[in-house]
């Protein structure tokens, strides 16, 4: 599983959805076919950057019943490491990219009595695929969508057109905000909660759910950690004796890959746990959502796709 299969695709359409969000439609090329996928899945898109390839995970938002194309939406992050800017400024119709096979870290729970979906801003994208699935299942569901203003409300009109019976919107510039306590306090047993969006919303909702006694197995969230830009450091590989410099805008994983190594990895967003690596020396700056607080505090393991060093060097058991 260390080298996920790549699917060659062509960009069939690029659509500007809001001043910050573009939607990309991918069609298979070279006779490839797109696998079926389950709602909530993401793909990792590989972009041929100038210095190194960018590889970012994006949720599939198109219908799981549509196999002729996939769609993802990308929010432009001007302060990020460059992947979303690459998608916004350099990817156009006809371009050829590679994507990974879909992987699902944010699946609908098949035994839920009710599905309570909460999105903040661009966190709406995995729900767009899930709404297709929920409609087909004729499930009991509610879609709660919080955004700052209409410029940040991607797909608002589409949702109004197709899911108005289930849709609840919160536009904070108009003074309408989502109150997690009020929403979560009054849900029937067997309700499953799904949250995707900015860290503040995600923590507010999941903390509230736990405080109200929701079982952990009913709380689902997805937040791909964008690897932060940090200060450079040295990573030493204990088994091979190699020493590599990790640039401020690169991750440990990318640095190892640039050096010709092929460490295990999958989601590249600190979610799946595949790249967990034993750290022999050094202070870790954890940025993932996979390791428990206990493990993080032990300073012995890290997810090399998103986490960095506080110290000037890290020694990895690789």
């Amino acid at each position: 599983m260390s080298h996920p299969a790549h699917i060659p695709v062509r960009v069939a359409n690029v659509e500007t959805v809001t001043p910050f969000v573009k939607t990309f439609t991918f069609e298979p090329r070279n006779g490839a076919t797109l696998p079926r996928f389950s709602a909530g899945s993401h793909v990792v898109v590989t972009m041929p950057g100038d210095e190194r390839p960018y590889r970012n995970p994006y949720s599939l938002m198109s219908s799981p019943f549509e196999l002729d194309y996939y769609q993802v939406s990308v929010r432009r992050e001007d302060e990020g490491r460059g992947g979303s800017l690459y998608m916004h400024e350099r990817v156009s119709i006809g371009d050829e990219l590679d994507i990974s096979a879909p992987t699902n870290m944010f699946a609908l729970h098949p035994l839920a009595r009710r599905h309570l979906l909460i999105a903040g801003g661009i966190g709406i994208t995995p729900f767009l695929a899930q709404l297709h699935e929920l409609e087909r299942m004729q499930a009991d569901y509610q879609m709660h969508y919080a955004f700052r203003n209409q410029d940040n409300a991607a797909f608002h009109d589409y949702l109004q057109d197709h899911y108005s019976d289930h849709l609840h919107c919160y536009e904070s510039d108009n003074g309408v905000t989502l109150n997690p306590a009020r929403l979560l306090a009054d849900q029937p047993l067997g309700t499953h909660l799904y949250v995707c969006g900015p860290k503040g919303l995600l923590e507010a909702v999941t903390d509230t759910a736990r405080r109200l006694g929701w079982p952990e197995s009913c709380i689902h969230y997805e937040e791909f950690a964008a690897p932060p830009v940090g200060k450079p450091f040295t990573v030493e590989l204990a088994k091979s004796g190699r020493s590599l410099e990790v640039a401020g805008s690169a991750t440990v994983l990318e640095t190892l890959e640039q050096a010709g190594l092929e460490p295990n990895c999958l989601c590249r967003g600190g979610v799946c746990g595949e790249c967990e690596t034993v750290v022999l020396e050094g202070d870790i700056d954890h940025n993932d959502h996979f390791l428990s607080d206990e493990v993080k505090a032990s300073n012995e393991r890290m997810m090399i796709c998103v986490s960095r060093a506080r110290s000037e060097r890290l020694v990895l058991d690789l």
Partner: protein
Amino acid sequence: MSAQLQINDPKIKPIETFRDDFTYSNSPEAIRRFPFPFHEDKYMYSVNIEPHNVGPAGSVFAPAFDIDEHYLSEIEERRRVLEEDPGRCAVLPHMMEAQWDTLELLMTSLARDYPQHFKLERNGDRWTWENRLLGIKDTFTFDDASTLPYEPFEYITRQVQGDFTLHGQRNNMLYMDGGMVTCQADWSLQFDLGMDFYEWHGPVPKAHEMGIFERALKYLLNLQVGQPVRRLNWTMTVHPRMDTSPENYHKWGIDRSQVTADNVGELAHLRVELQSLFRLPRSNAIIFSIRCYLISLNELVTVPKWARRFHRVHKSLPPELADYKGFSGYQPYVIDFLSQYDDGAPTSPGTQPD
């Protein structure tokens, strides 16, 4: 190279039996391609998982789902088991999507790997499936179970060798959410149905303490569409009996006391399971294929390397493993029998015959 070139063209035998008169046997070709599981002269548990769908030409590892000379016999045995005990096939209601995933995976794999025997035509949702070995040709509507004579999972697994289990993934856990289990090594689908990964592996000795299941589960939770994996497992069975189920223990348990020094070569069989796991794309479930191969000691010792190695594996096997696998009672006969074929010479690396 096209996949077809690497895959065996099975010469299917007429129906043989896995019960009563036990007419089952392996041809010399089937012996040569038997998945002998020991790569060294001893055995211990490990997370011996590797990518599936790559294997030497003609081997059981080359196709997604191996069809061999015993196809008709095993399909008939499955039909008989189900006739007596329909509960051997059970799927929980929330797994319908996974049922269709299974049908699609098996049909497309068989039609690709064995085009001489299986054919799938897809015209939108109207599919026509042809199984020339069983004389089946059915047209049905994908996603509409009322157009098939059985539910989709049972329909297709009645036509494929080996047991299958279906595992839903939720709560960072895998569950036993369904299966077609008629040729199992002493475990019960009806008992395990609904259990989680740790629960259904509960009886396995040693492996829990070794952390095997934590690592295996973490690995499987990230299993990728299109990247199946496999491992081999093994035990011993008296007679070539496919159905060694707890449900029928009263029929086969006694067999183990009937092994003698004189008949052990004929009665004792090495039972190997080629276990492969596939992520199902629409349901995000996992299908687990447990493909069972049986070889008598008499057949096994026709490969001198295997005879030597199997003797050494038995001699060094921890007693609790022999107990768990259920052959400690007659193991001394097995060891004595195999010792005749072990001259102490070193064995070559790998599992293939010399």
